[in-house]
């Protein structure tokens, strides 16, 4: 019972944070709403038994990516037109499409929900064993990607620098 309540509470909190991201004006508040959404999603993962994913969600997303994002928002702090008028002309068709989706979702919930059965817990240990025994090639291949990203970031910043002399 408490499992079901916590799962749906985390899910509702994640959806509420996502809606807040669209509505709030200042990028810093949007970033904090996104942090709230990510933490709620980590709670959902934990309730579903995916403990390894929940830990990585907090460590990598909230701990690394969002801190980087908040740092850049504080570094730039540009006051321009996007603060005064938040939305483009796509607002009306976008909201119309979203209302249709929410209507489908609401109709499903209206018919009644079956009780939630918690999944089998999948902790860090079995994840680590499977990761380094079966999926090490994928790990090595994907580790090229951050290196390429760092080199590309350096190249972009070099491009922006004015030539000396």
């Amino acid at each position: 019972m408490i499992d079901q309540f916590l799962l749906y509470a985390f899910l509702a909190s994640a959806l509420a944070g996502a809606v807040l991201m669209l509505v709030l004006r200042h990028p810093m508040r949007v970033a904090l709403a996104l942090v709230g959404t990510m933490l709620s999603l980590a709670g959902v993962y934990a309730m579903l038994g995916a403990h390894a994913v929940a830990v990585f969600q907090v460590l990598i997303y909230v701990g690394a990516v969002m801190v980087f994002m908040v740092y850049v928002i504080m570094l730039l702090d540009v006051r321009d037109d996007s603060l005064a008028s938040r939305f483009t002309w796509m607002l009306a068709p976008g909201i119309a499409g979203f209302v249709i989706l929410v209507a489908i979702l609401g109709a499903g919930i209206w018919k009644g929900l079956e009780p939630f059965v918690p999944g089998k817990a999948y902790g860090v240990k079995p994840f680590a064993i499977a990761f380094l025994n079966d999926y090490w090639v994928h790990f090595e291949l994907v580790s090229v990607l951050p290196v390429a990203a760092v080199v590309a970031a350096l190249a972009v910043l070099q491009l922006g620098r004015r030539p000396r002399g």
Partner: protein
Amino acid sequence: MDSLQLLGWSAVALFALGLLGVIVRRNVLVMLMCMELMLNAVNLSLVVFAQRGDPAAASVLVFLVFVVAAAEIAIAIPIVLLLVRHKRSLDLGSYSDLRG
């Protein structure tokens, strides 16, 4: 509705909210954050579908999505910094001269 079905639909709703944010918001940093929200929605759907399949494969795939998200941010932020240095603005409308 099955509770896993509800979670799957919620992942769709989160993805749609992220896509809506990318389409309707004018601030470039907010658009980037909405893209992160879309990646999060994909992760949620992977974890939900893993409840009926192989949790190891799904967890590894989610981990790889994390790496892709980190790389995306590492590239996107310098590009935004460069654009702000040129235009002194985060507004998408001021970059309209990039149109081909």
